[in-house]
């Protein structure tokens, strides 16, 4: 027997409600925070150290050595930041935006685009 039309739209609302509920569940929020801290933090550190190294007005090998030496410090700061700010949205946006800016700047300076 074919499902009646009104119950089909009811199912759609149920599914959306389910997705919204699961995303706001505690475990998923924690998981997302770890994702941005670990992966986002790594991306931020990679982009910032690469850009820093490129911009430093010292010999190339020295710039590389300095950037890698402070890389872990940068990563640790970003990681702690990701767990200090209450709003998960702020954390995601700030890290993604800054990483994107660094990468974009680097791409422009190095004529990748």
């Amino acid at each position, binding site marked *: 027997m074919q499902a009646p039309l009104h119950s089909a739209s009811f199912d759609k609302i149920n599914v959306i409600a389910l997705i919204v509920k699961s995303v706001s569940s505690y475990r998923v929020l924690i998981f997302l925070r770890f994702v941005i801290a670990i992966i986002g933090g790594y991306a931020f550190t990679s982009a910032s150290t690469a*850009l820093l190294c490129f911009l430093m007005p010292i010999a190339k090998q020295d710039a590389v*050595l*300095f950037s890698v030496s402070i890389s872990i410090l940068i990563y640790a700061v970003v990681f702690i930041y990701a767990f200090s700010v209450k709003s998960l949205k702020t954390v995601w946006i700030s890290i993604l935006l800054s990483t994107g800016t660094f990468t974009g700047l680097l791409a422009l300076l190095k004529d990748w685009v």
Partner: protein
Amino acid sequence: MKDSFFRSMTWLHTWVGLLVCWLLYLIFFAGTLSFFRDEITLWNQPAIHNVQAQTQRIEAQKQQIITGFDYLANHGANSPSWRITLPEPRIPYLVYGYAKPKEPGQRRSQFKNTQLNPNTTQELEPFVDTKGGNFFYRLHFDLHYMDAITARWVICFASFFMLIAIISGVVIHKRIFKDMFSFRRNKGSRTWLDAHNLSSVLALPFHLMITYTGMITLIFMLFPYPAKTAYDNGMRGFFNDVTPRNTMTDKAKGESSMVPIQSILDQVYTKWPHADITRVQVNQPNMAASTITVLVSAGKTLRDQAPRLIFSGATGQMVAKTDDELTNSKALYESLNSMHTGRLATWLLRWLYVLGGIAGCVMIGSGCIMWAKRIRERTKNNDKPSFGLKLVEGLNLTTIMGLPLATCAFFIANRLLNPTTAERADKEILAFFLTWLAVAVIALLKRDTLQWRVMAAINTVACLSVPVINALTTNGNIVSYLMHKQWALFTFDALFLLFSILFFIQTEKLRTAKNTSKIISPSQSNNLKRQKS
């Protein structure tokens, strides 16, 4: 993420320890042992037990190198690579080696090494095949039985979480100065907390340093991007820039006899009088493109790259060298690396490093145990232990009691395995891992106070048996080491006796400890109190 920074850091401190604490315990355990890498290798190699320390070690180097060149010219004339390794205070023998032809599938060619007693210039007894201290050294960053790169990524992940745990730990330890010397005994979980806080604060500079610098040693695997961005040919370009290489005569073709080594050494001593030479390497001997590299000890300076001079073998001129003065960036990077490896440390600083390492093991171990106790306390009496609780308690028992036992097995295997056994070094390592696995199986079945007590008793016997078996299978023993002032060997045996005593104390303490499975929840104890009154 929580209402306050403090609360967030409290939450973070517990949870970053989650998966990685047992791996971190292994890293600290093996890493601490690695500070005595040379002494362990010495103990594992009876052939070098009786090599006496040289009285004029540095003065003897010139002649040792000259003799070595004669030897290698005779024996390794067709080899592409020669290496003379001079005796060091902690590695007391001389090695003349030349590379054998590379076999298919080998990354680097094997060396045919001749080991000599530097006092008598006689060849030493054949060495047994053992990894010695290098097993623990490699274990703590390459793990074992797995691809090294994968292992290093896992180790770096764990180390980074460790760094976060330390930072968050400092943030949440409000009473860090007030409680610096507090240790409340016999107060159950408070005592464990005090042990955790004490071992963390006591060696806090060490913990921060060793964790941060540990990742720095692998930093080019983690973040190759700066080098890739700065150099058009990426990492290769960077390495070429920072490593002194011969760019003057490396393209020369054909054969050419080499200048006498004395003329090279004269140049070395002119630049660095009283140099403590560690190694002399010859590439492509008797070719026009040959190079002779002389590496000297960095002594107590914070340098990671061994200072060296590279000469053309054919003309005798210096073609490359390490920087005399390091730039600030280079000094920073080399300091960080040299602080981690601690190669610069003489006996006092080395023991202080080991103290820090032991504090690290206590810090991590007490953290693991507190976590298990916390889960146990939350388990109501009639509930079956959850999978999580069984996992945590099982891994605690396996790691904390299993690693020492596995270490004993490694050394006992070294003494008991026949010197002519094939793959002998791998078998010693197998003994380590099989023992560890056996403890894991026991922990899988049951992990009560009784099992901890049994393991403590087994460890008591195992630690005691190491110096005993040593006495029975070699010419020396702890008493003879003391009499002949063989301090490294004496300390090795003495430490095992000390640990045997400590494990015995643990066995006795566990006799009177409450059985963990019978700990009742607070509500139950309240009920009992009401019933009694």
